[in-house]
C-alpha cells in the first residue's frame, strides 16, 4: 500500500479523534443533564479508541498492530459496563431528587 496514503488517512482520523475528545470534554463540562454527561463520556471514549486504532493502522506492513486493537476491544466492554453503572446511578439520583421534592418539610435530603 502507498505509504503517503496511509499517512494521510492517519492524519485525517487522528484529527477527528482529537476533535471528538475535545467536544466530549466540552460537553461533559458544560451540559447539565446527567444523561448527557454520560453520552459525553462515551464520545470521549470513542475519540480515544479512534486515536489508538489509527495509530495501529499507521504502523502496518501487512496487518495493523494487534496490541492496540486488543486494548480497544477490552476498552469497549469496560466502557459499556461503566456506562451501565453510571446510568443506574443517574436513575437513583433522579429518584432521590424526586423524593426530596415531594417531601413536605424538605428536611430529608436537604443537606446542602
Amino acid at each position, binding site marked *: 500500500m502507498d505509504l503517503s*496514503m496511509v499517512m494521510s*488517512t492517519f492524519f485525517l*482520523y487522528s484529527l*477527528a479523534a*482529537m*476533535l*471528538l*475528545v*475535545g*467536544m*466530549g*470534554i466540552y*460537553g461533559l463540562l*458544560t451540559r*447539565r*443533564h*446527567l*444523561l*448527557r454527561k*454520560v*453520552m459525553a463520556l*462515551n*464520545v470521549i471514549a*470513542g475519540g480515544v479508541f*479512534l*486515536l489508538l*486504532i489509527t*495509530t495501529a*493502522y499507521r*504502523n*502496518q*506492513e501487512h*496487518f*495493523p*498492530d*494487534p*496490541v*492496540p*486493537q*486488543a486494548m*480497544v*476491544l*477490552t476498552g*469497549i*466492554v*469496560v466502557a*459499556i*459496563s*461503566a*456506562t*451501565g*453503572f453510571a*446510568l*443506574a*446511578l443517574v*436513575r437513583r*439520583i*433522579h429518584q432521590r*431528587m424526586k423524593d426530596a421534592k415531594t417531601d413536605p418539610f424538605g428536611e430529608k435530603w436537604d443537606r*446542602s
Partner: protein
Amino acid sequence: MNLTLLFDVFLIAALLLVSWRLLGASDLFQATVLFISFGLFLSLAWIRLQAPDIALAEAAVGAGLAGVLLLGTFKGLEPEEDREGENLSSEACRLDPISPCPGRAHLLLAFTFVGSMTALLLLAVLDLPAEGDGLTLLVFQSLDRSGVEHPVTAVLLNFRFYDTWLELGVLVAAALSILCVRNRLDLRELRPSKVPDVMLRRLVMGLTPIMILVVVYLLWLGDHAPGGAFQAGVVLAAMLILLWFSGHASITSLSRILWLFSLIAGFAMMLLAAVITASWPEMRPLEFAEEWSGAIILAIEVAATLSIGVVLSSLAILSLGAVED
C-alpha cells in the same frame, strides 16, 4: 481523486456532525437516537481502519446495547412520555440543584481548558515516531507459539492475558454495583414494562436457534479470524435480552446461585488457569505450555463468553425491568 479519501472525509464529517448534534441538541430523546447512529458510524470507521474485531463488538455494544441502556434510562426518568425531557428533568437530575446555570465565565473557562487539552493531544500525536511497527512484528513472530492463529485473539488471551482477566473482573464489579444501587439481590422478579405480543414471542422463538448458532460460530471463528469471546458474548447477551423481553425463560428465571456462578465463570476460569500455571514447575505464572495453550484458550473463551453474555444482559435487564406489583 481516489474514492477512499472521499469516503474518509464523508465518514469523518458524519462522525463529527453527529457527535456535535448529540451533545448540543436540546431534545434528550433525539440525542439518544443520535448516540446510536454515532456508534454505527464508529463501527464503519473500524472497518475502514482494518479492525473488523472491534467493528463487530462496537456495532453490538456501542450502538445496540448502549442504545438500549440509554433509552431504558430515558424512559425511566420520563415515564409520562413527554418529549420535553431536558426542561423538566434537568433540574431533577442535577447533582447540585442550588447552584446557578453555567454562565459565560464557566463556558469560557471550559472552552479554554478544552482548547489547551486538544492542542496538547495534537502535539503528542505529531511527536509520535514516524517510523516503527509498534508491536506488530513481535506478535507475528510469537504467533505460532500462542495456540491460536488470529493475532488479536492471541494478544487478548495469551500475550496480554492479564488485561482480559482484569476486564472480566471489572464486568463482575459493574454487575454487583448496579445490584447495590438498585437495592436488589438478584434479577428474579424483574419483568419487561410492556406485555409482549404473540408475534414477538413467535419471532424470538424462531430466532433463538439461529442466534445460538451465531454465538458458537463466532466463538469458534476467534481461533483463526475476526471473532471470539467478546463478540460471541455480546450476541449471547442480545439473545438473553430478547428472550426476556418477549416473555420467555431467560436469566431472570435462573436461581441466585446459578446466576452468580455464570457471572463469575470467566473470571474464575482465568483464576484457575493462573493458579495452575503458578504452581507448575519450570513455568512462570500465566505462561501456557505450547501443546496445551490451544485447549486452555478455548476453555477460557467458553467461560468468558458465558460471563460476558450474562453480565451485559443483566445490565440491560436491570435498567429496563420493573418489579411487578
